[in-house]
């Protein structure tokens, strides 16, 4: 089906790829349907979570384990119930990324990951009960020794 998007204009998507978010996403509770637009560049880890109903609404997302291999995420029972998760292989996890003007300072929300049951095509944003994580984790290391080398 054809889909209008702010970032990519009119694109063709496979209806089978539509993910249903019964509760929407926090702040956007009415948005129940999204599709993931993968980056054309296979080496680019940033993708888009695009609203089906609203062409202007899209989130930059990333697999958090790429930036944080030790991300210790425990999927809450409520999410397992609501997403009908039977097996951890059913699950894909993404973090929403905020990209500021100074791109070096882009951050990932590790406190509120997006959990998707790829088989059931169901998604939900969960809030982790873990005070190690916040909504803003730098994706690129900010220490001086890393910069400008």
């Amino acid at each position, binding site marked *: 089906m054809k889909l209008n998007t702010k970032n990519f204009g009119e694109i063709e998507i496979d209806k089978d790829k539509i993910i249903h978010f019964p509760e929407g996403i*926090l702040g956007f509770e009415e948005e129940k349907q999204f599709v993931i637009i993968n980056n054309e560049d296979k080496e680019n880890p940033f993708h888009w979570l695009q609203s089906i109903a609203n062409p202007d609404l899209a989130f930059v997302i990333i697999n958090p384990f790429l930036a944080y291999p030790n991300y210790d995420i425990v999927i809450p029972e409520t999410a397992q119930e609501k997403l009908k998760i039977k097996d951890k292989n059913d699950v894909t996890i993404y973090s929403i990324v905020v990209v500021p003007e100074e791109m070096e300072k882009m951050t990932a929300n590790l406190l509120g990951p997006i959990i998707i049951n790829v088989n059931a095509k169901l998604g939900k944003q969960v*809030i982790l009960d873990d005070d190690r994580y916040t*909504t803003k984790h730098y994706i690129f290391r900010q220490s001086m020794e890393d910069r400008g080398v």
Partner: protein
Amino acid sequence: MLILSRRKNESIIIDGNIEVKVLGIEDGKVQIGIEAPKNIDIFRKELYKCIQEENIEAANIKLDINKMNQFLKNKK
């Protein structure tokens, strides 16, 4: 907003199967116990608001995709 007063150990039942109980009151803080079915999400409001705000910020970024791709290429 429904307003009720409860003493320590008194409860409120919501929708027949959610119980909210006052467990203790101390130091200006109320300890609240909640029994709810497995599919009910319960969070402190600040957490909820924090994530909402972050999502709204993420949705409002004005991203130049080419600039981002260029930035990432330079990062390699």
